[in-house]
């Protein structure tokens, strides 16, 4: 593993390398280098399996994080590759040609975060939602509670009582 990390540091300038646990390494790389890094790992280093593509919204710094988890089924190692892209006009290079199921992940991320993957198959078709015209729902600035209350006729619930005050009111109404 260390050998590999050194190689990656030379070739792709990966930084921020951490051991998250045994056999699992986190690293950060520039977004433009992700496809090259992934195809290198796939072809030459035995990381044959793409476990998942995930995305995290760091609204505080105005960036989206894209995480590519790849797995080496023979040596049983995991790499979590992180890339940061700007939140405005978010777009990322598609890797659908490397793995067959990558396009599904990308389709979901496009729908949920609004990150575009130009060229990925069926990326513009809705995946989970139907007729969605609001902010992409997984963005941090989308308030699901507010949306639900405005749209779905919330049923008025019980009045919630603070138990301490309620007991006081019931048992010692005179006390101040």
């Amino acid at each position: 593993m260390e050998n590999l990390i050194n190689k990656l540091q030379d070739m792709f300038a990966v930084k921020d390398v951490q051991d998250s646990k045994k056999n699992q390494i986190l690293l950060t790389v520039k977004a433009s280098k992700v496809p090259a890094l992934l195809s290198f790992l796939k072809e030459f280093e035995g990381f044959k399996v793409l476990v998942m593509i995930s995305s995290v919204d760091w609204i505080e710094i105005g960036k989206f994080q894209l995480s590519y988890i790849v797995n080496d089924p023979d040596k049983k190692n995991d790499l979590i590759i992180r890339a940061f892209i700007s939140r405005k006009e978010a777009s990322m290079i598609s890797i659908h040609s490397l793995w067959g199921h990558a396009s599904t992940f990308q389709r979901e991320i496009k729908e949920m975060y609004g990150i575009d993957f130009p060229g990925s198959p069926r990326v513009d078709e809705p995946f989970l939602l139907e007729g969605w015209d609001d902010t992409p729902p997984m963005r941090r600035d989308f308030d699901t509670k507010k949306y639900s209350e405005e749209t779905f006729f919330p049923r008025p619930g019980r009045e919630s009582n603070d138990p301490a005050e309620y007991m006081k009111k019931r048992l010692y109404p005179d006390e101040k």
Partner: protein
Amino acid sequence: MKNNLTSLLNWNTNRSNYPEMDADGNPIIDLESQKFIKVWQGPNHPGVTGNMSLELTISGDEVVDSKTHVGYLHRGFEKLFERRKYIQCFPTCIRMCVPEPDTNEYNLAVGTEELGGIEVPDTAKWLRMLALEMARLQVLLRMVPGQAGTMGLGLGSQWGMYYRELILDRFEELTGGRIYHMYILPGGVRGLMPEGFDKRLLGNLDKIDGFIADIDKLIFSNAVFKKRTIGTGFIPNDWVDHYGITGPVARAAGYKRDVRKDYPYLFYDQLDFDYNIAQESDVFARFEVRRQDLVTTVDLLRQILAKMPRTGDIRATTPNVLHWKIPKGETYVRVESSRGEYGFYMVSDGTEYPRRINLRGPSYTHAVSVLEKLLVNSNISDVSAIMVSLATCPPEIER
């Protein structure tokens, strides 16, 4: 001339080049030409597992193009987690995969422990293993005879449901819940085994042995079942890595993929079991692998009951769960569910709310990208058999 004659007599011709493909590999389908019909299977169709739909273009009885449509069960779990503290995530997260909820709680608990730096006591680990294996057993009891149920042999499923109820009874005894257990929490488990539990569980396992012998006779040696399944839904070897296929489906293709052996968690390295492998990679092979898994699971439960301590600490001390700030970090945790590798990618930003919990279920690849490819050139009657053989579980795709 001779060629024409032989093709006339042979009704199992190779149809894989039909219909013609364009340059990008997409089939050329002209619905106006009246050669093709478009039919929808699902969401309201008994042959589709769960709430999902398949848009099939058929020509005669043959599927020439298929598209999966998911999202009928989308609840936005990953958004809801942003508004919930870690402990509040538990009741929500188990609903992500309904047939086998325990893997969800286990993943979330382990991820939280890894990020928060908590060590779990040994007894709790054994009890977690017990719960996970029981969960696997109850799923397999439904799924193995269910494969024959997709072809009209419902008798096995009825029997299987009876034995599944026995395991659900044991779950009720252990955890208080029938489907949703909420047994595995960060730091340990909720309770010890009740008195006499292991005796009753062992009794049930003996009965299940008898059930396995019964379905061997009913389904495995059934000529029509073999005729329907052998050679149906073949997955080529090179798809396994290219599509990230895991679990029994990969094992049926001859790949040794089992999270319990590859990345031993809990005390699986102390138990004696092996990869269950088949080579043929068709519906029958997957069914056979699952049946082997059923035998293995029964065996593992016996081993666990023999080895596990009956008393001891079951819960590590954690900070107050409502004010527990998990340190910043990222991790990917995985567990072997009955359908394959089941993983959580967890990102914590140092507050008491998770930043992101992303689920990667086996159905995500099996039922979307693989199923679409696999159905092409299959018979429309085999669609549900193939779908069940991939162990499709729509809620984990959509979350």
